[in-house]
């Protein structure tokens, strides 16, 4: 009966995926005949030669005709051989199995596996086979056993390249979501740590997991996150970057309002501050919401090192973040509009370096900054051995030859170099830096310091207007009252940081009990 029906469906939608093959008709499912079931499943998996159908029989009980179905490469074949095929083949089923329900007896007494489920829903069966489980079919049953045999090669846990530390844990997330969850679980040993799974992607069925600490994370933010995830309607998720962009506030802004990290210690610390993490299978980058601007300047090492040293480093990061955006514009506006602001000796040396240079300062600044960005991108894209050559060409050709050939003046090269280095300190928002630096430079080249300030105020207002999951993006940046500023521009000593961030952890502010009196 099945074949005709399936052929019908297949004719109607010859290329649609499994889900749409079976979803609409509830009558479709396994039936009692093993042969029918096999042909039914091989129809679903047709033209996929990695799917293995292995049929075998118990030597004592002829009636126990079995078939296992799995995907080659996704499973651990040792488990299949020794824990499924061997016991079912060799044990004396005619003696052991007393009841009529052969399938249940097999599950309970014969198959050696930590996770076996009796499943009749065809869509679940198919998706678990696709995810590395093994399907166990027996003649005369319209249900199947789903045995966990996942076993594919995963990258070992290593220190992430994107965020190396001198002091602190050296483990980083991998591409496997279960390994990642275990890394966080190992740091936070409490039953309050909740994991909620959800599949996203019409075709990829990518596993995602919302992770939070109950009692700390705000319900409103959690519901908002779930609602946004619900609305995602995309065929596939390859990296968490997809989701990051899809659920982001202020979608047109170059500033990130969803955080990401490759380090379990960072994610654990953020969970402890009441934030919510989103794990995506296949991506070592775990997302966190809400994400505010100061998190760009916070490095995990800050919290492990001496607080004075950390404060100094954080001030450097904050300072360079501002200067990397503003320095070219300030330089241009002073040198080309407000020469009276320069001390006379400086004006003379700048004027001396400008002699016989044909390109205007503004154009040469744009040009040099563009070339710097090209070099940076080349450095990213090039295979490592060739990257060296790029550095040499960049440093010598641009730094020296251009000045000696009088194509650009030396101060422009110096400003470009300073800007470039300062940009690289804050890789978290490099896109915003490049975009706003260009806008400020445009303003400055048309209207001098006046234009610079117009654009700077626009940037400031923009930052002030952004929210991340209803939390102001500039939270704590402009406030130093009570506990607000203790983890923004500076990193206060741990004995002072008795409270969690105010808006994000509104449920339970007290981090150290000594801070209870200061709660209000």
């Amino acid at each position, binding site marked *: 009966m099945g074949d005709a029906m399936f052929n019908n469906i297949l004719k109607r939608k010859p290329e649609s995926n499994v889900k749409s093959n079976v979803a609409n008709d509830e009558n479709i499912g396994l039936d009692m005949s093993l042969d029918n079931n096999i042909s039914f499943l091989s129809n679903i998996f047709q033209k996929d030669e990695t799917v293995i159908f292995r049929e075998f029989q118990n030597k004592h009980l002829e009636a126990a005709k079995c078939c296992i179905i799995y995907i080659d490469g996704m499973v651990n074949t040792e488990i299949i051989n020794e824990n499924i095929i061997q016991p079912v083949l060799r044990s004396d089923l005619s003696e052991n199995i007393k009841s009529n329900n052969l399938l249940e007896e097999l599950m309970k007494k014969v198959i050696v596996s930590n996770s076996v489920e009796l499943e009749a829903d065809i869509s679940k069966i198919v998706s678990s086979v696709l995810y590395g489980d093994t399907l166990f079919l027996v003649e005369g049953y319209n249900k199947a056993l789903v045995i966990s045999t996942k076993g594919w090669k995963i990258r070992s846990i290593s220190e992430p390249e994107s965020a190396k530390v001198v002091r602190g844990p050296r483990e980083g997330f991998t591409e496997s979501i279960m390994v990642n969850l275990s890394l966080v679980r190992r740091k936070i040993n409490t039953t309050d740590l909740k994991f909620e799974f959800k599949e996203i992607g019409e075709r990829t069925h990518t596993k995602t997991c919302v992770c939070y600490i109950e009692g700390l994370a705000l319900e409103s933010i959690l519901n908002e996150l779930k609602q946004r995830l619900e609305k995602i309607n995309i065929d596939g998720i390859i990296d968490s970057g997809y989701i990051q962009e899809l659920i982001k506030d202020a979608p047109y802004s170059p500033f990130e309002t969803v955080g990401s990290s490759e380090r379990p210690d960072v994610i654990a610390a953020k969970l402890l501050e009441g934030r919510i993490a989103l794990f995506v299978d296949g991506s070592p980058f775990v997302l966190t919401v809400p994400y505010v601007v100061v998190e760009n300047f916070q490095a995990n090492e800050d919290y492990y090192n001496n607080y004075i040293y950390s404060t100094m480093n954080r001030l450097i990061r904050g300072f360079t973040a501002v200067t990397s955006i503003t320095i070219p514009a300030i330089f241009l506006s002073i*040198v*080309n*509009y407000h*020469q*009276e602001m320069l001390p*006379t000796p400086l*004006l*003379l*040396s*700048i*004027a*001396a*370096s*400008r*002699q*016989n*240079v044909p390109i*205007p*300062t*503004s154009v040469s600044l744009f040009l040099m900054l563009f070339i710097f960005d090209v070099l940076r991108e080349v450095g990213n894209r090039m295979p490592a051995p060739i990257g060296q050559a790029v550095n040499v060409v960049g440093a010598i050709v641009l730094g020296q030859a251009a000045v*000696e050939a009088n194509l650009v003046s030396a101060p422009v090269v110096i400003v470009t170099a300073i800007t470039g280095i300062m940009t690289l300190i804050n890789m978290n928002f490099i896109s915003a830096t490049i975009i706003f630096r260009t806008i400020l430079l445009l303003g400055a*080249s048309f*209207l*001098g*310091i*006046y*234009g610079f300030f*117009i654009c700077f105020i626009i940037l400031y207002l923009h930052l002030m207007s952004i929210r991340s999951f209803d939390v102001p993006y500039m939270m704590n940046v402009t406030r130093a009252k009570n506990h607000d500023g203790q983890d923004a521009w500076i990193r206060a000593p741990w004995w002072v940081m008795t409270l969690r961030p105010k808006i994000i952890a509104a449920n339970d502010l007290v981090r150290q009990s000594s801070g209870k009196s200061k709660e209000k």
Partner: protein
Amino acid sequence: MKKIKIIFLVLMVLMNSIFAAGCWNYKEVDQFSIVAGVAVDIGKNSKYELTAELIQISGGKEAKTTSKTVTVEGKTIFDAARNMISISGKKLYWSHAKVIILSKEAANNGVKNAIEWYTRDSETRESVYVLISKGETAKEIFDGQGTTESIMSFILQDIIKNQMSLSKSSVTDILKYSIESQQKGASTIIPAVSLKLMNDKMVPEVIGTAIIKNDKLAGFLNGEETKDLSFIRNEVKGGVLVEEMQVNNLPAIITLEIFNSKTKVSFSAEAEDLVINIDIDTTVAIDEVEGTVDLSDEKEINRLKQITENTIKERIETLIIKIKSEYDADIFCFGIKLWQNNPQVWKSVKNNWEDVLSNAEVNVKTNVHIKNSAIVS
């Protein structure tokens, strides 16, 4: 509709603030000539002859800065300043000018007229030092050769800045001159500059001051007189005092370094019988002794103190008499002090201030502290 209105309003405000505001003057630093200093003379045909010292930069790796002068005539100073473009080719840039030198003729013509443009224009600065040339013309100062730098205006600026540890000249910039010359009855002083032959080179020398009365040049004071004047004006910040004393019938010359000096001017009595009390409190140290003096003896120190107090007092009294008799000009800022301290009295005397001042009695009290004898280690 409301939204469109708001957007339109915001756009209008933005447009206005962008296009109706200043800052149109985009200019590269190599497109203008930087003026280091200006000299004002009276021309043959026109009223003014303006000489600008322009900085010349030869670019490249070993950049050198030299200067050249450009002289142009004009009906007014600004007229002459704009006429310079026809010679220099580049627009002149005045914001970094350091000094303005007036010739005696130009000063006689009214100092205020010569610097009026400087106080009014947007590009020029009020911190420019004013100098008066003792020579024939003002522009000849730029022909001098520097001992340290090649740009004369910068040398003059350095001299003026550093001469406060000499006290033989004063510091007058355009702002100070404008304020002091506006006080009724007050006269001002402007440092004098001249060229001096030294090792076959004509080098500039800023020493002494010019007395400006009613905006016109009245005369010159030499360096020592300027120092005495600085005592009265409470402008002494350094300098030396050379005293001679007899020790066992042998002359000894002692040089004292002034560390700090404070002068208080107070007035007693009413209107016609004005009495001016000058209290000078000076701290000095013995810096050089020529001859033999027993400095460990407190009597000797006291004697030196007495001698110093008397010489300062004498010299100040002589200066006041000289100024009174020769110039009749209130360069001591007595009028300003009276106006500040006793405004009622000032009101009654301001119309015939010069007469009142010449009849006024001046009492000078000096008090010298000898801090130490600069023990040689």
